[in-house]
């Protein structure tokens, strides 16, 4: 018996493990996406969460607005972007998506997209589940999967009343979508299940395995008697009647049903006034200092002088250090930071030194693709803004790669 005791001890251990207190650290999943997939596919910018706060109650609403550009630098090893779906990324149905607007149009489903185009989105969510979690806007592209925008922490407190999700059907009835139709589903499942169970029990109350002997002797008529055949007929009639009942019930209780609706369209293009063009001259990455340096030729085709304000990649905004506010998270140095006059072409060096490259696993140097892409923003004094894609492979010198790899190995050891 001692072995059983040892086993029970193991079981107790398992249970003990599961009642340990919950950890404090909380996170979300985007760091697992390959770096190049985040940097080179889509850039989210101007993302706002309204109301911009952390504390919410169940049933409260939040609107996520923003823009995204499907970059021209879309990697060739990822399927061409054709069909996409704008959504949010949260721990499952912790939030309800109530509205989705793309370029000013209400969007019930997926959209057709093209490389190089900009999409303006607005997603309204309702908090359904209590807890602290991250909410991101996201773009899912067919065969490329989910691509995620900047996140926002929310802390949703339980509401005193149970959560409901009322919706008005076309027949005028208002129902709670949290449990609408569930009674019907469970009821019919139980009816069918009961008939099935009766048929099984009818056979299984008799000796089961002893039948094998008679099967061996070929005494089939004793295993399935006339009485059984009649029972079979009865149950078949019951099944037929139930099916007819179900059909009639469905037709009378829920008339006027329609199949699933698929609305897919290409959103109307946004009117964008481009007056600046870019050309990347060189781009380097120093892994030891986590510094990306990009030399960009900027040509101003507009009528006012412009200044570099921001570089955005994936879900991160790097603001020109000279323009940054104290709470700006990521900054870059622009040199020379002088205005580019109309008609002028100027070479500007952008230095992006930030821990995020490695912390968020954006530029892992042992990967097949180390390159940088994103949107560079300029603005004139009147407040007119323009942006364009800059993309380039990153040059890294061999010596620093060796150093980083060595460090990693030491760490593992």
């Amino acid at each position, binding site marked *: 018996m001692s*072995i059983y005791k040892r*086993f029970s001890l193991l079981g107790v251990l398992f249970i003990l493990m599961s009642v340990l207190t*919950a950890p404090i650290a909380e*996170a979300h999943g*985007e760091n697992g996406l390959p770096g190049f997939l985040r940097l080179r596919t889509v850039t989210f910018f101007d993302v706002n969460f309204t109301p911009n706060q952390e504390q919410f109650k169940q049933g409260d609403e939040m609107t996520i607005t923003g823009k995204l550009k499907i970059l021209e630098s879309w990697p060739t090893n990822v399927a061409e972007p054709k069909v996409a779906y704008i959504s949010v990324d949260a721990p499952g149905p912790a939030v309800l998506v109530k509205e989705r607007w793309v370029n000013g149009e209400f969007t019930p489903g997926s959209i057709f997209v093209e490389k190089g185009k900009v999409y303006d989105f607005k997603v309204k969510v309702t908090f359904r589940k209590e807890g602290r979690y991250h909410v991101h806007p996201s773009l899912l592209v067919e065969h490329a999967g989910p691509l995620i925008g900047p996140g926002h922490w929310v802390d949703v407190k339980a509401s005193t009343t149970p959560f409901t999700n009322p919706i008005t059907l076309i027949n005028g009835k208002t129902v709670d979508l949290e449990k609408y139709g569930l009674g019907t589903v469970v009821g019919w499942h139980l009816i069918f299940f009961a008939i099935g169970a009766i048929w099984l029990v009818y056979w299984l109350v008799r000796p089961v395995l002893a039948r094998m002997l008679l099967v061996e002797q070929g005494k089939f008529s004793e295993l399935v008697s006339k009485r059984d055949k009649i029972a079979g007929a009865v149950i078949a009639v019951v099944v037929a009647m139930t099916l007819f009942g179900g059909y009639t019930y469905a037709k009378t209780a829920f008339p006027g049903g329609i199949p699933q609706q698929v609305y897919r369209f290409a959103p109307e293009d946004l009117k964008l006034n481009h007056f600046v063009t870019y050309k990347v001259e060189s781009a380097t990455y120093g892994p030891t200092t986590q510094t990306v340096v990009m030399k960009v030729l900027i040509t101003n085709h507009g009528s006012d002088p412009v200044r570099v304000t921001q570089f955005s990649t994936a879900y991160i905004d790097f603001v020109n250090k000279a323009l940054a506010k104290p709470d700006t998270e990521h900054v870059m140095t622009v040199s020379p930071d002088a205005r580019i006059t109309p008609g002028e072409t100027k070479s500007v060096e952008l230095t992006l030194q930030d821990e995020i490259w490695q912390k968020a696993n954006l530029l892992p140097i042992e990967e097949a693709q180390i390159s940088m892409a994103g949107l560079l923003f300029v603005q004139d004094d009147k407040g007119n803004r323009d942006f364009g894609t800059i993309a380039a492979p990153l040059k890294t010198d061999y010596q620093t790669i060796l150093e980083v790899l060595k460090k990693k190995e030491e760490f593992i050891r």
Partner: protein
Amino acid sequence: MSAPSQATEALPKGDAAREREMKSAMRLWAFGAVFVAIAFSALRVYQQVFAFSAGMDSTDPAYKKYWTMLLFVEFIALAIIAVLWYPRLMKKPKEAPTPQIESGYIMKLWALLAIFTLTVFFQASFFAEQDAAWHQTVVRDTAFTPSHTVLFYGAFPAAILTMLATFLYARSHLPHVFFSRGFPVAFALMIAGVVAEMSWVAMNEWWHSGPYGTEEFFSTPGHWGFVTNAFLYAAIFSVWGMSAKRLIELGRSDKEADAA
């Protein structure tokens, strides 16, 4: 139907040894089933507590603490069970069993099969479909998500462990039934089934790393290996069938023994 009670009445004396074997088999069945149920329920509770709080980002230190740790706990626990349990199953009985005792051995074999089927329930039904639900909460970021950690590295090896237990018992206690004329095809298929299910995990992860596995679509070729391997589980009916046929034989020889 009153047949069972009549059968019990008809038992000749001297069947106490058989009753002991039968009772021990029933105990093994009850204990094994309860143990498997409790172990997997505990894992399910663990998921409930730690999946949303620590299981959503594989680069997070809390993830390593709560989920990578669980992976090792699972492997170690399974290894301990194997080390403690297998030698007992492999121990051959001292003397050739009487028909009565052998029928008890068959009951024990079926108890082991019953425990195996319960692990299959957790492997192929409960935690398998659960994975579809979990993929709706985060983007795919690692092969060791909270659902995979329990499914692929807990339930899958548990099915191998219990299947091998059944096999070892059959080899030590019922060799004349299952190993008289070579290796039984039934067990070959069963073992191939559990091992191939586990191996397909590697193919599954490879598939999902490619361009067709980024969204969560369950009816995808990358998953079909799990289906074909599960078909091999049908061979469990051969194991049952062979032992039931043996029970019929034993009934005959026992009858003859009684007459003599």
